[in-house]
């Protein structure tokens, strides 16, 4: 498991079966420390004692029962960002048919029929973790942009710069919005490659692994870093 995989992603599970156990074994196998919060009833999940901050929600139709619409509404209203959600079918045709109709238009919900392959569960968990990472980096970029703006306005008003601009996570070059801003293609690509290599090194445990992920030789990576 690469070091960029988030530790402690919080996943709420609404289930009366062994879904939590499946998720536990997945996290142990992949070395990802999932923080699983298991609930056995919709009221328990959506009540005052329920979670307020989640990275993912896994629900079984059997456990949600007739309260599935309330659970989905709760998820929509409690969280500012759309949450990766997994809905497991019960294997009963009528219940599953009603459930799939209720999730129409909610693109963030992944439907898995009862008895779905383990790979599908893997894919959803990786997606939930990746979304968590994307959000964490987005927040970091927004905070840095905000602090840079503040510092810029201080300079404009004649004050000294009271902060060192943070290095922050790497950024790809912005695309030009006017002809005057266009750089030669070679330079723009070089800027992008530099940032991309920095980002991949951040994502991997070692330079060796980074070179494999980048599809270039270790020597070539070393030369580019120099």
């Amino acid at each position: 498991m690469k070091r960029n995989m988030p530790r402690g992603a919080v996943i709420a599970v609404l289930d009366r079966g062994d879904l939590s156990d499946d998720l536990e074994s997945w996290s142990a196998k992949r070395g990802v420390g999932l923080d699983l919060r298991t609930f056995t009833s919709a009221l328990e999940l959506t009540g005052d004692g329920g979670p307020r901050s989640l990275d993912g929600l896994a629900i079984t139709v059997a456990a949600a029962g007739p309260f599935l619409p309330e659970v989905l509404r709760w998820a929509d209203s409690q969280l500012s960002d759309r949450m990766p959600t997994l809905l497991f079918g019960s294997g009963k045709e009528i219940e599953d048919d009603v459930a799939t109709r209720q999730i129409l238009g909610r693109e963030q919900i992944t439907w898995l029929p009862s008895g779905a392959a383990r790979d599908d569960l893997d894919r959803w968990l990786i997606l939930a973790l990746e979304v968590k990472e994307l959000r964490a980096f987005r927040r970091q970029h927004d905070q840095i942009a905000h602090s840079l703006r503040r510092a810029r306005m201080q300079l404009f008003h004649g004050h000294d710069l009271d902060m060192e601009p943070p290095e922050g996570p790497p950024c790809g070059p912005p695309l030009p919005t006017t002809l005057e801003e266009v750089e030669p293609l070679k330079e723009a690509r070089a800027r992008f490659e530099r940032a991309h290599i920095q980002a991949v090194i951040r994502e991997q445990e070692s330079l060796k692994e980074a070179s494999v992920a980048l599809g270039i030789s270790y020597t070539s990576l070393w030369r580019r870093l120099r």
Partner: protein
Amino acid sequence: MTAIVPRVGYGPHEVSDARLSSPVASVLEGHGVSTEPHVELFDCAELRDVLHGLVGPGCVHEHSDSGSVASAVRAHRVTVVVTHARGISELMRNLSVESAPVGLIVYDPNGHDSNSAALRAQGVMDVLTDRLPETWADVLTRAFDFRALLMLELDHRCESKRLSQRELELLGEPPESLSDDLDSFQPPPLPVGPMSVHDLESASDAFETAYIERVQHLCNSAREAAQVLGVSPATLSRRQRRDIE
């Protein structure tokens, strides 16, 4: 994240010292952006010698037309505009200072040709009445830093937007398809997590495709696009064919 450090002073400078302050220059270099400073001098020949002494003759670009100042501001990343008080109205009209964030410094030797408070309110960064190199070095450095921070901010906002788009794609939103919308169409973000593209060549090709597409929207013809991109029309055409395949 934003470590508080001893203030970067803008006190008296040595001549030939009007550059970005070193912490700002170091971060800008980390982003792969040139730290070379540029001064766009409009209708103010009296300051030529002072500015040549402070930033070097090669970095001072004299303009007699205010329209060309606006183009130069977009072309140079670390840049400052210097003008005489007598030409400020025309320049501000063309530059639309409020929407083109650049340090605009006004030279007003008589001290009464302009209302400095009113100018500042309109977006002028400073009004100077003398030609002392120390005073100009101080203000120029501040204006270069101002512009550099803006470039860094733009980089971070842009990457944030790309991450946000990627998140929407993962959560089932269709990818942006309106590529003629210059403000929203972006290449994928840098890799985050195991589902991203890590391969250097594939990622660079995706960026290059987005870059070429953007430039073509800005140009009237493929020939012009090739010229501004510094490649031959045949090369540009070959790369586009490769993308289609």
